[in-house]
């Protein structure tokens, strides 16, 4: 902001502290990567600290041989793809009427929707509704009950609102139907906002662990996060208790599984960082 000397004492100390923080945040992730690539002997002897020793892909091979993990991976991809698609579709449609200032009973709709952010009945009533509707043990239990996140709906609604009303007016005068305005004009114009909320939906599905845990009973339906938890943490609160779960499974294989589950996220990360920050901002303004 101001052209001061870069080498003040304060700046130096500040920079050093921040570097430490930066290292502290990435180091655990790099460590996991290093373990997953190292050979068993070096891992057991504890020689791996930052760089992998005896680089090989054995651990990954082992993970792929484990029947549970590839299937869980495919499940997660399927749930995430379908879920995010439905989220985006429903949200982008629902936000349009709400963005119209003259939409009938708009005030009451908005009140009813915002109110749900403050009323949270908890796990059990949600479970009972989903169970009563017979959605459990299917992908729909993960997709339908969370088809709209209120925060993302409000974000998109305000994005539509900010888009020039004239575009809409002009289209209306040209005789375009509301459907055409929405699908042919508004949605293509709101790609940045859709990318932002889509990212949050995507992350929500990819990292979802609790909902599949309670709604899916069949092992073959488990997504990656649930399998990871069974593998890595081994603690459902009913067993004799974990003394040292980390010792139970081979380190390299565990870490390889973690890395595999992080790969899609880390791959999109550089590209979506912008949308992520934007989404956080929009959310906080509306919140």
């Amino acid at each position: 902001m101001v052209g001061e000397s870069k080498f003040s004492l304060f700046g130096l100390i500040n920079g050093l502290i921040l570097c430490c923080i930066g290292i502290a945040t990435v180091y655990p992730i790099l460590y996991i990567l290093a373990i997953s690539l190292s050979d068993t002997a070096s891992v057991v002897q504890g020689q791996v600290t930052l760089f992998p020793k005896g680089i090989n892909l054995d651990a990954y091979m082992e993970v792929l041989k484990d029947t549970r993990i590839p299937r869980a991976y495919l499940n997660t991809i399927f749930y995430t793809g379908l879920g995010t698609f439905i989220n985006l579709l429903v949200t982008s449609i629902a936000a349009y009427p709400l963005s119209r200032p003259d939409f009938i009973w708009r005030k009451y709709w908005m009140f009813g929707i915002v109110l749900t952010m403050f009323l949270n009945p908890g796990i059990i009533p949600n479970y009972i509704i989903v169970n009563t509707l017979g959605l459990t043990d299917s992908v729909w239990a993960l997709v339908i009950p969370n088809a709209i996140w209120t925060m993302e709906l409000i974000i998109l609604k305000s994005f539509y609102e900010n888009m020039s009303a004239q575009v809409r007016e002009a289209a209306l005068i040209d005789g375009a139907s509301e459907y055409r305005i929405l699908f042919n004009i508004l949605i293509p114009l709101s790609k940045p906002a859709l990318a932002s909320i889509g990212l949050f939906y995507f992350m929500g599905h990819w990292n979802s662990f609790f909902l599949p845990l309670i709604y899916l009973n069949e092992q073959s339906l488990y997504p990656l996060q649930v399998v990871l938890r069974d593998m890595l943490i081994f603690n459902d609160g009913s067993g004799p208790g974990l003394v040292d779960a980390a010792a139970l499974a081979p380190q390299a294989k565990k870490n390889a599984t973690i890395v595999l589950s992080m790969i899609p996220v880390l791959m999109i990360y550089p590209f979506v960082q912008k949308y992520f920050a934007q989404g956080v901002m929009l959310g906080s303004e509306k919140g």
Partner: protein
Amino acid sequence: MAQRKLMFLVPFIIIGRRRDVPNPSADKGITLNKPSLLSRITASFMRTLKHMKRDRQLLLLFLPCLIFYIIFRYGPLYGLIIAFKDYSVFEGIIGSKWVGLKHFVRFFSSNDFLLLFKNTLALGFFTLIFGFPVPILLAISLNELRVKWLKKSIQTFTYLPSFLSVVIISSMVIDFLSPSSGLVNKLIAALGFEKIYFLIMPEWFRTIYVVSDIWALMGYEAIIYLAAIAGINPTLYEAARVDGSGRLRSMWHITIPSLMPTILILFIMKTGSMIRIGYEKVLLLYTPTTYEVADVFSTYVYRKGLVEANYSYAAAVGMFEALVAMIMLLSANFISRKAGGKGLW
């Protein structure tokens, strides 16, 4: 838009007038000027119908959203009545027997109640007290960092963990603290101390929970503050510099006061949701030996309700938690407004 809205009212205004034209034979026009109640209701009904007809396409687009909110957001609220019933899967929500406050009485008189209350408050309080200032400090010091590329990369690093799932974060915690292979214990051993079984020791649980929370979330929350800092008028800094203020002083007198509204609002929100513990992580990190400090309302609800299938009892506990959370949010908002600041609403 506003004009369009008035336009379609025009016919009604005209019709209304025509009907209200004072009868020349009766001179007391005051009462006659008011249309009868019935005609007013009819008129407003017709108006609504007209409005609905005009908005039929929008209403159709809105329908899925409406159904979703009714079933999946208001349905569970209705489902809460099972807290006053003995819910059984076969009899359904409506068919189950009413039992009044039985479950609440049972919960409040059990030993679990005080313990859960204490644990939930303690965990929430520590997370708030230690976790809240970190993103602010991070944002302020990132803002003071003048080396562009370093600032960018540290920012990138710090919000990377918010992309990781709670399962991965928990398993990293378990891995790093493991007595046999964890880095932390290796370090402790190298310094000549005895290994610590962190995860089965109740006295460590809160520390582990809070520290891993800060690690995972500080970057994410700093984004909001960074954006608020970016919105501060640069001329303020210029003026301060001309007046001979150093960077520390500018930070203290400009950056921090300018951030105050944001800080306050986030603080209210955080206080309001203080007892909404990230139960997923507790669920992943606690063990029977640490239940005495780690068990919170929501994990208890999960165990009682979904593991042991005591739906009604668990719903009662969950309802109590929701009520406490709501009271806390309302009072945080109230206090902030009384103190002269802005509330959320």
